[in-house]
């Protein structure tokens, strides 16, 4: 599955490292002092991920939890994201990781106890009645390789013991194996990013199909999981409302609205570095034919009237389909 696996010296006897290696059936690994002696030291072209990736099993040092940018999650709550892995096996054409890291190689951080301890500290900084969210999947899909990394059990234990804290696992994966062995909790939401079939087929490369994601949602909902939905990034089209109407119909056929925790809407947007990577890596991408402009701050996006109209159209559609307004939030930068 991986070209090579590197393990940090201090983790070579770590139970989690051993478990991952045994799942990979590996006899031979490279022992290194620190993962970042190699990972990110040279500019490795993003699309080399197509020819195989290296995996690093490492300890996350420095800040383990970061404050999320504005409009990251539901309004009125405090939002943080935590870093349990770097990079992703999928290849969405708009993925911001392609301009963020200097290598597509994967890192699994396995010092989850440190992350959880920092969550505890963060919780301590907030009033008891405030809602504090911890989002996973900012730098890597939360579920895609979870059958290997096998980390969620300790998080479930933590969130069971801390019912005022909320966990979001962001994903596009149909790999729900790891979650099936765990018991759903009212403060844990598995959230899926969805796009209409036509566009998803073109630009969500190597991800499970829309059908497979909807099936995974259905299965998780049946098991009692709360589901979040991100209609993000929305890419404009002549049939925008029709396509999103169909998507919402399929979604609501599989997911009872009471199990829909929230639905977020966001239009496609890029930092200049990521946009340059999209142009380089996917020169024929339909995204590049969009009415995106380089804005005053260098970001590449639809102009304000355009994105507002898109968000308004999709929000109205969601309301029409019976999703209540309190569950919808807009990912807006302003």
């Amino acid at each position, binding site marked *: 599955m991986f070209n090579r696996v*590197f393990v940090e010296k201090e983790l070579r006897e770590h139970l989690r490292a051993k478990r991952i290696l045994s799942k990979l059936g590996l006899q031979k690994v*490279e022992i*290194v002092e620190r993962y970042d002696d*190699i990972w990110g*030291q*040279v*500019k*490795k*072209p993003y699309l*080399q991920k197509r*020819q195989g990736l290296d995996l690093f099993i490492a300890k996350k040092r420095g800040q383990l939890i970061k404050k999320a940018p504005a409009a990251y999650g539901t309004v009125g709550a405090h939002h943080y994201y935590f870093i349990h892995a770097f990079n992703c096996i999928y290849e969405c054409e708009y993925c911001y990781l392609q301009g963020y890291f*200097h290598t597509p190689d994967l890192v699994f951080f396995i010092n989850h106890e440190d992350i959880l301890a920092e969550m505890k500290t963060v919780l301590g900084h907030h009033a008891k009645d405030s809602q504090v969210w911890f989002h996973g999947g900012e730098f890597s899909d939360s579920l895609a390789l979870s059958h290997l990394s096998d980390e969620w059990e300790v998080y479930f234990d933590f969130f069971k013991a801390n019912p005022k804290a909320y966990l979001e696992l962001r994903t596009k994966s149909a790999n729900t194996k790891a979650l099936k062995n765990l018991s759903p909790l009212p403060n844990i939401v598995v959230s899926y990013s969805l796009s209409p079939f036509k566009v998803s087929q073109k630009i969500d490369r190597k991800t499970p199909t829309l059908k497979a994601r909807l099936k995974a949602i259905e299965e998780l909902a049946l098991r009692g999981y709360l589901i979040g939905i991100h209609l993000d990034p929305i890419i*404009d089209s002549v049939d925008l409302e029709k396509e999103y109407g169909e998507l919402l119909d399929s979604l609501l056929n599989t997911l009872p609205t009471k199990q829909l925790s929230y639905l977020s809407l966001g239009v496609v947007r890029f930092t200049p570095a990521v946009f340059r990577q999209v142009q380089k890596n996917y*020169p*024929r*991408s*339909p995204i*590049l*034919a969009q*009415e995106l*402009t380089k*804005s*005053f701050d260098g970001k590449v996006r*639809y*102009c*304000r*009237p*355009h*994105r*507002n*109209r898109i968000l*308004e159209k999709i929000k109205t559609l969601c309301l029409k389909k019976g999703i209540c307004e309190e569950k919808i939030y807009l990912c807006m930068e302003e």
Partner: protein
Amino acid sequence: MKLLVFAHSGEAHEFIKNTPSLKSHAHGEGRLHVGDDLAVLMTGEGMDRVFLHLGQALARLASVEKVYNFGLAASLIPECSLGQIISVRTVYRSLFERMEFKSYSSCDDLAVFDCISSFDRILDPKEAKKLSHFGHLVDRELWAVAALCHFHHIPFESFKLISDYGDQAISCEALKSKAQEYSCRLYEKFQQTLKHQNSPHPFSKPLDHREFLSKFYWTQSLRRQFEALYKRWEIANGPGSALPAIDEEENQKLSPKKKTIRFLKKMKESLSPTNSAVRKDIEAIIDSHPSTSKKFHIHYDNHLESKNLKVTMDISSQKDLDRGKQFLDTLPLKKIQSKIEGKNV
């Protein structure tokens, strides 16, 4: 023209022998041989020599379309075995204690092995092990070749014959004694590569709008604008799709440059219908404001982001001042802001 770059004359020998049109370049110090469609350069060993001699050669030969680097490399992994010829995917550079961040990739999309260019021959197994974390082969020149190609916007490919293993380097004499054999093998590889590259690309579809475009006047910057728009045009409308029609009668009144600008504007509008519609709406609101004139004008944010308006007034009399006050009183602020908000007024 194809420029073939070698470190040593021994490696280039077979190429020169089989290309009768090659003549020694007057200023090439015997290193550069130029033929009809091919040139051969022997740089000498190491990146410094490449920077010097390839840099000069690229300055002298104006028409290099592609650079091929042929040479020897040591393998860092068992998968690249002795005698194999490997096409390089990406090249990195070792800077003694650390790695250079910048890397360059060849234009061979099928290549899977990476090379590290080092200033010295790698003789220490520990060093070889360290380098193997970043690449599969080690050579002495490729990074410099690639950096110069990048600077000159010339694509490159590199073929390395594995002559030894990184941790068991063999002597220079042993390598020299095999130079003839290596050169023959590399030449064969070059012939195969050319044959493969000359076969028509199954997806290439020549687009020819030349006749249509010749009706316009093109400066460098207008051409660049066209090229950027055309990329989007092809994605949006399909390869080879017709460009926007031009109204010959209307265009007759315009200067050649303005004619081109109008054509590009049409392309832009067609590719950005929402943006164009909002601008048209806002301009219609501004134009319909009774006091708008050369002296009193409303400016809106060109990015359609900020809701702030700028008003310019040229006031030289009491009458202007009174008109200015009235102009401000009746400013269609809300209407314009609603448009920027994306609302239909």
